[in-house]
């Protein structure tokens, strides 16, 4: 791979050598990175450096590939990736920016490509590009009030905080609950194991039914039989978790449907009566709830 080699020592990349020859007075620090040689320069040297990088015929960096902001917590940084079409070499220029004075001179007069990149970096990090013709927010709404990509704007922290909070809550609840409920954590694992066993039983029963030549309704009934046997074997482990059930729910599907239909009838009649009486809104709802409660008390 052509440009993959990482220069081992400082200044081995030819473009950096050229830079050193052309601009000896600029202080910079070489950072070895894969793919492109990178230099760290001071903010004050930036305009002159960029102008030379663009216009000097031996450097001729006419293409601004990428302009990013990075938040290093103690300082911000602007990184420019440049390429020269004439010579084919690339360069990354990194400029550290102090947090209390986040100003960097703009490069949009040299490369128009920088225009939108600088707008985006400004709204995401709060870095002000002096001299930019139009520093409105690009992706975010105006007047947001904060800079999202800064590390001080929490994303992970909120989630971590939430997780810790939830864990603390659960610990409190578990401590306050009677000792029987201590098995909460095991409950979930047990439920999962139970569901897996049930699935196994169903699968085996289905295969047996198919082998016997049953299909459709008969197959379903066969599978249901097997499941019922399995649950009977397990006995009390399959007791419903919500202990205070309002009434014994009918296990038969048809009975459930009949119950639901009865409920719907009751609701419809109650609504009509309420409307005939002139009730509306909250009162109408309460009337319907009354009717439902009466139905439940009558049993079903």
């Amino acid at each position, binding site marked *: *791979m*052509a*440009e*993959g080699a990482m220069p081992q020592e400082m200044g081995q990349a030819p473009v950096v050598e050229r830079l050193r020859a052309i601009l000896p007075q600029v202080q910079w620090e070489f950072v070895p*990175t*894969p*793919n*492109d040689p*990178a230099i760290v320069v001071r903010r004050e040297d930036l305009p002159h450096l960029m102008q030379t990088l663009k216009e000097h015929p031996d450097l001729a960096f*006419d*293409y*601004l*590939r*990428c302009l*990013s902001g*990075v*938040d290093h917590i103690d300082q911000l940084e602007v*990184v420019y*990736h440049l390429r020269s*079409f004439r010579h*084919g070499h*690339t360069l*990354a220029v990194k400029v550290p920016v102090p947090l209390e004075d986040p100003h960097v001179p703009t490069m949009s007069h040299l*490369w*128009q*490509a920088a*225009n*939108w990149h600088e707008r985006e970096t400004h709204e995401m990090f709060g870095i002000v590009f002096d001299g930019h013709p139009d520093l409105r*927010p*690009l*992706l*975010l*709404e105006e007047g947001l009030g904060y800079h*999202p*990509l800064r590390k001080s704007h929490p*994303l*992970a922290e909120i*989630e971590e905080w939430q997780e810790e909070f939830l864990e603390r809550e659960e610990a409190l609840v578990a401590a306050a609950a009677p000792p029987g409920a201590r098995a909460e954590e095991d409950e979930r694992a047990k439920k999962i194991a139970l569901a897996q066993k049930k699935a196994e039983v169903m699968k085996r029963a289905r295969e047996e039914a198919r082998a016997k030549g049953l299909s459709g309704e008969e197959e379903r009934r066969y599978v249901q039989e097997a499941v019922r046997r399995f649950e009977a074997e397990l006995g009390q482990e399959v007791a419903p978790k919500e202990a205070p059930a309002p009434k014994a729910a009918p296990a038969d599907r048809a009975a459930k449907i009949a119950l639901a239909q009865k409920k719907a009838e009751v609701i419809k009649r109650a609504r009509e009566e309420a409307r005939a009486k002139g009730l509306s809104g909250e009162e109408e709802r309460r009337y319907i709830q009354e009717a439902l409660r009466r139905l439940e008390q009558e049993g079903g």
Partner: protein
Amino acid sequence: MALQQEHELETIDLHINVGPQHPATHGVFRMILTVDGEKVVDCDPVIGYMHRGAEKLSENCDYRQAIGYQDRTEYLAQFNAEWTYCLAVEKLLGLQVPERAEYIRVILGELNRVASHLMFMGAFGTDVGFFGTPFMYAFREREVIQDFFEAVTGERMMYNYFRPGGVAWDVPDDFEEHCRYVIDHVRRGVEELDALMTDNEVFLARCRGLSPVTPEEAINWGFSGPMLRACGIKHDLRRAEPYSIYDRFDFEIPTGTQGDVYDRYLVRMEEMRQSLRIVEQALRQMPKQGPVMAEGLKRTIRVPPGEVYSRTESPRGEYGVYLVSKGGDKPWRLKIRSAAFCNLSALKNLVVGNYVADAIIILGSIDIVLCEVDR
């Protein structure tokens, strides 16, 4: 002087909002055009409607989870986006991707390029005013390619298949026959599409000579991909800064002459043919067996501190990922340099001075993907 002012016809420039909801803006994009009669005097693009904070979210994911965000950012050329990201991570880790995985990546990436260009043909044809015929033809081929991707990755669009170090799993057994079928089918479809659109007189009348761009302007404005090659610059990252195994393949780089809308269309049409050539060569050279994932990767990838800017040639241009890592299992900064973002930033230069009807065509010829622009 006062008399002259009295007799001048006072006209007001009309502000037209080619709004977020519009059949022709390829997504949720807003252009505020200031129009004098039929000519556009000013253009202010407003983006950000699809901004979902992919870069920030990626800082909270570990290195394998972030692949999903790359998919959703560049939703027409997903493999290229995943590839760039995986290249960045592999570069920092110093991983060597096994041969078979490289070939799989090349095949899928190039077919993804074809699919993306087919989508462009369909959408661009609709913009220019075809009643939907190129759209139907192009999508028939795209369906074939998406079927193929579904057979390999299980997904029609958000593949999540490339991983740092290789690909997630090996390809199915009928990969080669299926791929050859796809190549044949798509090749014929591309010729049909070419016959329908390229020499069409009305199409030429609309697109020829519209918004030409000089090479210097193109480089200054940050163009890449077909927009840049249409201006005559023979720059393709697969040749200029080869990544993966692209130096083993023989393909041409189509260029245009004057950088106008028609040239951009021609470049993309020819690129589809060249991509199919690459896929054929890759199929022939691919090792029949072998690992598809690099050795020694742990369950959690921890990348040593460093930074890298990796870039690939996506269908829209140069898709770059600037990855800064400070050790740990999550990226510190993941900046996505998307081609459509940079190409779109020059919209004002391209559109001003043309007619309103042409503004839509110019926008279509840039081939934007809003999620990539907004991330």
